[in-house]
């Protein structure tokens, strides 16, 4: 079985003015299907950049990224967009919900963008809202929700299209300890019960405990690839 996500000699260079900044240097990682991996590292180490590259939100300077057997750079914008709708679900630190849409509409965004009929997803929506325990909040807009609730909406949105991979960028970075616990439990359940591959970026060893492997990134390089957490 191919790896869920695989990178080969992945490099990313940004330009700060005219100065090139090498953020990722020849990264090679292999994430198997059903894994719950935490990418850790100090600020500016390139961990979020690695996550965004894996999800096709950014383009590498060199190297390859495979999602299953598909190499991302060979995909057109449309194919990458379809991939993000169906194969990958994103969760961000600041939730990134669309403020003028209700909880329901935010969750249904990937479905709507995929051109599917919302009525076919009524049951799935109901289930997922129940899973994230927001039954009494579905008509509310994001600004009427707490941080933890907003992040649960973001997770529900990431799950609605039943993708194989969930990519989470510091999903608890903006939450208090109680909300952190709720969100991490939810991600763990998604990983264990639904068999989704979860890759999260985190500073916190505490949240890393919920996963089964840690990839440490420092100065744009992975320095413990292959080392199991447990």
């Amino acid at each position, binding site marked *: 079985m191919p790896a869920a996500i695989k990178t080969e000699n992945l490099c990313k260079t940004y330009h700060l003015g005219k100065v090139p900044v090498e953020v990722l240097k020849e990264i090679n990682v292999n994430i198997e299907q059903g894994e719950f991996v935490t990418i850790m590292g100090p600020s500016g180490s390139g961990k979020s950049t690695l996550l965004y590259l894996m999800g096709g939100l*950014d383009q590498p300077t060199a190297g390859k990224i495979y999602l299953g057997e598909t190499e991302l750079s060979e995909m057109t914008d449309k194919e990458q967009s379809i991939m993000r709708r169906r194969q990958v679900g994103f969760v961000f630190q600041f939730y990134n919900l669309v403020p003028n849409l209700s909880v329901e509409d935010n969750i249904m965004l990937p479905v*709507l*963008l995929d051109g599917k009929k919302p009525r076919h997803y009524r049951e799935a929506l109901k289930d997922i809202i129940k899973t994230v325990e927001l039954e009494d909040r579905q008509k509310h807009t994001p600004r009427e929700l707490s941080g933890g609730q907003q992040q649960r909406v973001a997770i529900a949105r990431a799950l609605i299209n039943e993708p194989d991979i969930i990519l989470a960028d510091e999903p608890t970075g903006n939450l208090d300890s109680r909300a952190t616990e709720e969100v991490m439990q939810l991600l763990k359940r998604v990983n264990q019960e639904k068999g989704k591959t979860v890759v999260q970026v985190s500073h916190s060893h505490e949240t890393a405990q919920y996963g089964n492997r840690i990839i440490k990134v420092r100065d744009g390089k992975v320095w413990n690839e292959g080392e199991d957490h447990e």
Partner: protein
Amino acid sequence: MGIIVKYILKNIVEKKFRTFLIVISVTCSAALFFASSGISGTLTGMYEDQLRMDTGKADLIIRANERSPSSTFRLSHDEVQGVKLIAGEISMGASYRLSDSIGRAGQFESRQLHLRGFHLDELQELNPVLFSQVGVGQEFTGNWIILSQIFAKEHGYQTGDSINIEINGASRRFSVFGIAYPTGLFRDSPQSEQRTAVIPRETAASYQGLHGQVSRAYVVLEPGAGEAEVQQALQQIYRRYEVEPPFTQADLSAMLGVIVMPLYLMTSMVLMISVFIIYSTFKVITAERLPVIGTFRSIGATRRMTDWVLMGESLAYGLLGGVLGNVAGIGVLYLIASILAADPWSGQMDFRIEFGLFQMAGAFLLAVAVSLISSWIPIRRVSKIPIKELVLNLAEGSSRKKSWKTPAALVLGTLGWLLPRVSPHEWALPLSVLGVFMTMSAVIFAVPLITRVFLKLFEGLLRLLFGNLGLLAAKNVKDNTNVLNNITLLTIGISVLLMINTISYSVGIEVLNAYRDWKFDIMVSVYQADRSVEQSLRAIPGVNGTYAAREYRTPVNVTDPNYTLQHLQGINAASYEEYMAFRPDGDAQELLEKLSQGRYIMTAHMMRHILQLEVGDRITMDLPSGLQTYEVIGFYDSLMMNGSNAMIDERYYRLDLQEAFPERFYVRVDETADPDAVLADIRSRFRQRGVWGETIQHLEAMNDEFNNQLFTILKAFSVLAMVIGIFGVFNNYIISFIQRKRSLAVMKSVGMSKFQSGALIMAEALTGGCIAGFTGILGGIAILTGIPYILEAGGIPFNIHFAINYFFVALAGGMVIALTASLSPALRGSKLNVVDAIKYE
């Protein structure tokens, strides 16, 4: 203080498009105010100059009127204190035979000349002739003639040359005394085929057989002499003649009112757009500055200080707009004056723009006030945010839902609709204007509600057109403040454009209808036209029929109820309908028959409305025969003399108004005859009897030209309003894109493609534009239904005619503008860097 000024200037310079938008809005408002307030003085000067061209320094003019025993009179030798000069004139028509090459397609064989007989010394004192050439040592008596430079150039005459002129059918030889520059009396209209020439008064009198008589006398007063006293003294001498100033301030005011009032109306519309743009832009500015304001406050700045930072920025825009507004205002004033100077009735007028400190200071203060007042509410709102929320970035700006807007729209709409309809006559004008503004405000407040209803109704269509993107677009249009602002801006712009174009169209229709009411081809008046004149007219080849129109154009004093009737007709019931359209309430024949049976009167609807008349009421008029009471037997539809007109039977007209002769004749020509040729024939046959005549076609064309001039200006104003609105819309789309970058990036992160991103923005624009077109039409209708009440209150009856194609243009215009404005955001949206937008916004 220095750092605050530096901060303000930096903000202004950094956001160039925003600065441009605010400054252009303020500038336009100030410039239009400047022009509107300055146009009155400029036009007064222009019209006075124009009127003075003919009458020179005359303070009073003595001439014959309908009640005078003759069209000429002898100048009295009685001394009147205060009179410096009485210059008599005898004028007559003449013609100059043209060579074949000059005649237009053989239509004109001769050029009409207006010969004016003066004593040259008197004329030089009254209305100086500026000679480009003049013979020396000659006395201006006998067969000398002064030609205009234009005529002399056209036909190659020099001083001393001989010229043959046809007067009363006989050829007369004159010698050219001098050539005059085209000023004063010699300022002929370029459109006119007629040219003026001056000959000695005695010579003119001898050709007319009027030795010692004049047809007009121009009176110049001694400096400091009382006009009223001299007028009274002269009236005693010339008892049965008219002694009046050449024009009165009331005449000028009436001429100016038609132009100045619509300009102020348009200025207020532009002002409305400017206020809205500045208000909405300052909402964005204050939202953007929240972190900086928080920083200022956290290091000890008071609320007042941070308010002043923002007010300072607003003041800077106002000051800049005020200065530019004055400069632009001079340009706009010049432009308006130059357009109006090409007067179809009297030819090209000389003009100089007139403005003073009042206009400049007024425009400047308006600019500052517009900027400060429009920005005050957003600034105050920010001022009230607690410091903690500012520092922690918890303040949400102005995203609250405005639940008061719908009730406000309902209340304003109802009041605005009711006010013009129920206000008492004496308050009708201000209340009708207020009502129109209230209705327009109601439409603006109702924009969110209309948007919601529209989206509810057309959600299915949007989905059909754009799929699920249509659904997302609908949700965004409904909730996005910037999109709603765009709809509002377009609503105002489209409403104003629709209003001006519909009024222009309506005026065109009304003018057309008015001229279509005249079922004849030529209007002719001949001094003291007895039966023989009418018979002679009928005998002219091509004339198919004539109607002797008895029209009393001197205002009639109605004593009970109190009213001034502008136009009273004495009609011939048997043939009236053959020459004039007659639309009474009831059976026309029956009413006309009854009218001829006694002292009965019918009035136009406008007069009925003002006097609250009913059938059976009695009207007492102060007529030349004394007070006469007429019974009202009906009403009819007519806008002649702005609806201040009434008709009685011609028998009682002759009796009570003591008018022996008809005022004019309506002449119908054969279908195969050319009205111009028939008119030329009439002029030629009656040239010795003070004939005046015009074809209806020519009158209509001149009226059209005058209306077109006025509407060119008004349309330019409304286009300007629209242009400012469009700038605002472009700005709002860019602001909206900047504010939604993160949302768009989020959508991209969950699978929105580049194409979908562009399509979403375009779908929103199309929907917003369509709603704006619809609300613009609604706003336009709201204003237009109130306009007749405003005009009616000003004594001008007016019917609005809606042109359905304008509605489609408005709808399409709204969509095109919105789509065009959204092109750049759509392009930028499709190229959006998701990571940058999500991580660093």
